[in-house]
């Protein structure tokens, strides 16, 4: 029997770097797995579209940032079970990633980032010249 989904509260991000507007920021839930070829990060970021998404990789740190649109004005809240806000999360990567080959896709609020590992350096025999 398929498992029933449970409520998991959104977690406020502890540090989110600079923000240009006042908005709550949450930590998106992620799955990260590794294969021989690379790392894949899947992050749930509902409400984020391509324009609102920033991904960068600098000095072994991967930063994911997703902005959601401000709520529509002129409506009264009857009840609010969850807060709406942007998403932010950073990861330290231990693997050497080939930055030029990173790919990302966003669908139905789920971000998929594939980070291929750098090709292993082939062992090279060094000739020693003796005079």
């Amino acid at each position, binding site marked *: 029997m398929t498992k029933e989904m449970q409520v998991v509260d959104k977690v406020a991000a502890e540090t989110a770097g600079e923000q240009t507007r006042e908005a709550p920021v949450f930590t998106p839930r992620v799955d990260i797995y590794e294969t021989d070829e690379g790392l*894949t990060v899947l992050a749930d970021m509902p409400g984020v579209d391509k324009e609102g998404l920033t991904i960068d990789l600098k000095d072994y740190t991967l930063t994911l940032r997703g902005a959601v649109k401000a709520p529509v004005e002129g409506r009264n809240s*009857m009840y609010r079970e969850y807060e709406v806000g942007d998403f932010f999360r950073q990861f330290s990567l231990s693997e050497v990633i080939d930055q030029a080959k990173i790919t990302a896709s966003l669908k139905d609020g*789920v971000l998929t980032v594939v980070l291929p590992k750098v090709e292993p350096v082939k062992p090279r025999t060094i000739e020693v010249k003796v005079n």
Partner: protein
Amino acid sequence: MAILRWTPGPYGFRTPWRELDRFRNQMSGLLDSLSGYTEGVRRPGVGVFPLLNMEEDAENLYLTAELPGLSGQDLELSVEGDSLTLRGERKIPEAGEKVNYHRREREAGVFRRVVALPVKVDAEKVEAEMKNGILRVTLPKAPEAKPKQIAVRS
């Protein structure tokens, strides 16, 4: 424990009616906390998936939910009388063989939630849209539920 203000009531300082009032207020607070709501805001850790926000204006009720990974086909939405039922399943694709998970925080599964609509709506005109993993449902209020301007004659 609430601090009681000692103002004289119509029958003197303490009366059986005052005690009943205080009891009634405490009970209503208790019911709030049992339902997971305190002053209209849900307490963390309580609730049925998915969490919902409901808003209104003069014309419509608006319901939103965060359902990442789902598109319109994965959901069943129905309105009957004054309740709305939302059912669906979130699936997470298998990562394949030979993977090593560093983190696994996301969940998949089925969900079903029935919500009481506080206002009569016109079920024929309900619209719903799934975009970027957010469900937005617009429920036009039934004509009798809309506020009416009343002209005041002078």
